[in-house]
């Protein structure tokens, strides 16, 4: 996601951009919400207290607020409508029915502004038979704990029965492929017949894979207000977002090369001159500026061997402990030190190689050191805001 956000922002400002991506990104696990900082109340206040190695400290609270306020419009241009406010967290509902703080949530998702005051008294929860990545019972008990009554309405459609031939393939994405046109219409009818007297219908995100048309259509056809709740991955809205971002980038003239891996680069006099990729062999890609948006351990942006942690493309300087014993904490639920490992950057997010800052290479998103996205709930915030910041920096250079 960081790569695409940087690319779109830069291309929109007139830069010629090329993105090389080894595979799909963490957006395929998207919960429907972006987190700025996972806390009660005002995330900016919490951010003011983070350590100086944190990417947020390099941005500064003022700039974070300014950039954060640009984000809904940035996504709005692609018809991705996000609701929320950087000075006050709201809550999203997890697939297990738990409320979690969030900064921006996609409009189609269920959202709770205030934990003490749930927006509904009675809801109907759709249960797609055979679909195991969404557990209506958990959601129902989560609702009950907060005083919301719920009824679970089982839904089966012949189109979906066919998918059940292969239980492991009864996944959100495959269901979404079926739920269009007439099938969608019959789904709406079933919901309307069974939902009864409720304030809202809650439905797993199994609609609208390639574009949001099916989501809009279903909302129109269901009589009661319809809100979506995240499923376990893969995330249908996440994939749709990925496709939409890629499309937008290409419409702005950007070139997107998927399925290729950057393997090495040539550094001359403190500048990265060119890079090489697996598919293009000896061809050297040159550019005025390079942005490293390769993510963390999960996407191989940084790699751990038995004795060290390293950045695999250029061997950039890393902020990590040399002592393996310091990588983990025994208690799995404590903040894990290795989560904060990443490439070292200066105050402008420029990376360094053997102690020397590279004047034209920036790092953004999860590859950065100094934050713990899981513990702090700051993954998307760091990804989006550092990307926008670096794109603006390059454009003004």
């Amino acid at each position, binding site marked *: 996601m960081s790569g695409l956000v940087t690319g779109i922002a830069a291309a929109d400002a007139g830069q010629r951009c090329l993105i090389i991506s*080894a*595979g*799909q*990104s963490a957006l*395929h*696990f998207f919960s429907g919400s972006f987190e700025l900082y996972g806390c009660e109340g005002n995330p900016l206040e919490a951010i003011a207290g983070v350590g100086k190695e944190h990417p947020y400290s390099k941005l500064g609270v003022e700039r974070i607020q300014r950039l954060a306020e640009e984000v809904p419009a940035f996504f709005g241009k692609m018809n991705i409508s996000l609701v929320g406010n950087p000075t006050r967290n709201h809550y999203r509902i997890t697939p297990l029915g738990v409320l979690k703080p969030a900064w921006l949530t996609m409009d189609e998702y269920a959202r709770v502004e205030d934990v003490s005051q749930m927006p509904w008294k009675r809801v109907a929860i759709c249960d797609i038979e055979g679909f195991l990545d969404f557990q209506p019972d958990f959601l129902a008990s989560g609702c009950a704990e907060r005083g919301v009554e719920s009824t679970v309405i089982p839904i089966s459609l012949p189109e979906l029965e*066919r*998918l059940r*031939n*292969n239980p*492991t*393939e009864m*996944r959100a*994405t*495959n269901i979404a*492929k079926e739920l269009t046109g007439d099938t969608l219409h019959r789904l709406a009818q079933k919901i309307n017949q069974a939902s009864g007297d409720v304030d809202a219908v809650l439905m797993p995100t199994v609609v609208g*894979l390639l574009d949001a048309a099916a989501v809009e259509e279903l909302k129109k056809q269901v009589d009661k207000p319809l809100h979506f709740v995240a499923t376990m*991955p*893969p995330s249908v809205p996440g*994939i749709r977002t990925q496709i939409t971002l890629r499309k937008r980038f*290409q419409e702005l003239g950007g*070139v997107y*090369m*998927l*399925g*290729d*891996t950057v393997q090495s680069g040539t550094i001359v006099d403190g500048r990265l001159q060119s890079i090489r*990729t697996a*598919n*293009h*062999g*000896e*061809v050297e890609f040159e550019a005025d500026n390079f942005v490293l948006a390769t993510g963390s351990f999960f*996407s191989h942006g940084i790699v751990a061997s038995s004795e060290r942690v390293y950045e695999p493309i250029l061997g950039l300087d890393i902020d990590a402990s040399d002592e393996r014993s310091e990588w983990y904490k025994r208690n799995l639920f404590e903040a894990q030190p290795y989560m904060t490992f990443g490439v070292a950057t200066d105050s402008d997010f420029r990376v360094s190689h053997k102690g020397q800052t590279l004047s034209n290479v920036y790092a953004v998103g999860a590859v950065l050191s100094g934050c713990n996205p899981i513990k702090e709930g700051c993954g998307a915030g760091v990804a989006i805001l550092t990307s926008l910041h670096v794109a603006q920096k390059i454009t003004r250079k």
Partner: protein
Amino acid sequence: MNNEQHTNKQSFEQCVKCTICTVYCPVAAANPDYPGPKQAGPDLERYRLKNPRFYDDTLDLCLNCKRCEVACPSNVKIGDIILSARLKYSAKRPKLREYILANTDVMGSMATTFAPLVNASLKLPAVKNIMDRTLAIDHHRTMPTYSSQRFEAWFKQHAQAKQENFDRSVSYFHGCYVNYNHPKQGKDLVKILNAIGYGVHLLDKEKCCGVALISNKMEAQARRQAKVNINSIRRSVAAGRPVLTTSSTCTFTMRDEYPHVLGVDNADVREQIVLATKFIFEAVDAGRVKLAFREDYRKRIAYHTPCHMEKLGWSIYSTSLLRMIPGVEFMMLDSLCCGIAGTYGFKRENYPYSQKIGEPLFRQIKSLGVDLVATDCETCKWQIEMSTGVTVENPISILADALDVEQTMKLNK
């Protein structure tokens, strides 16, 4: 690299079960009977290694498009795993239909000899129905037409002699399609390369790249042909001639399927097997050659990315060349499978799925009102022409049509 190591032992254990591959599999989208890449590939491979009885014939539904591999964030060679499992475990042996469809060169040499006759009869409804009933080759298909003069014969008669006049030279792997069905594409390449100052030679010995043999499980024959080709390519490279192609599928097969699926080592020459558009683009980009275009050339052109081109990651070269032509109004189609996948879509049991897979692409093409669709794969060409009625050309042919040959020759003197 040994095929066993590459596909089975190493890569399937990298799978993190994210199911991203299944999202992008065109077959899983169209046919609920197909288990999808995650299950057919890494999931079941674990069981197959324990007991080959876990092999499942639905794996034959895989198109070998490799779109799953392009999408996988963990670099699992899903398509290779599935294809290797098919070759290794499938009890179904190729039948007459598979021999006919897979031996594109044998069929080609017979057909070119009787071209007008064969072309006419392949169009007859009666013949199509017989093929459908006896061979299960779907009668809806428009069969490829055959040329009466093979490319090789034309080259020897009309072009070979003057190729010695150039200081720089390349070899051309023309493939079955150019040789038997569409020699013009090969002639177009010779025209361009000669204009920019390169002589063109054929390989000592060229066999069909074997892509259809592999997908129809005729592995031994495919391996024999692969060895002949790689040996010829070695001799060409030793003589200082890189080997150019005009088909993304032949290119991909010789570069990647040879070592990964057939276990034929090509590491010493792999980088020298390149698509002609890549070769020409790089030469232009580096300033080694210049192109001049006709002023009266005007066309609205949309580019379709063949699956193997997506896997190679090379569409940027073909599209950059097309964008260089001043009279071209260029459009990029969404990168989607057209559904034919070589011989796959010719089989009766696959035909409806083949068309269903291609439907979104056909719809987009029909909506754009273009003069031509450009693409680097011959089977995509058949499929798109049959399903949309829009003419499809290889970028090399478009370039050749738009080129101002005299002016280009002057620029490259």
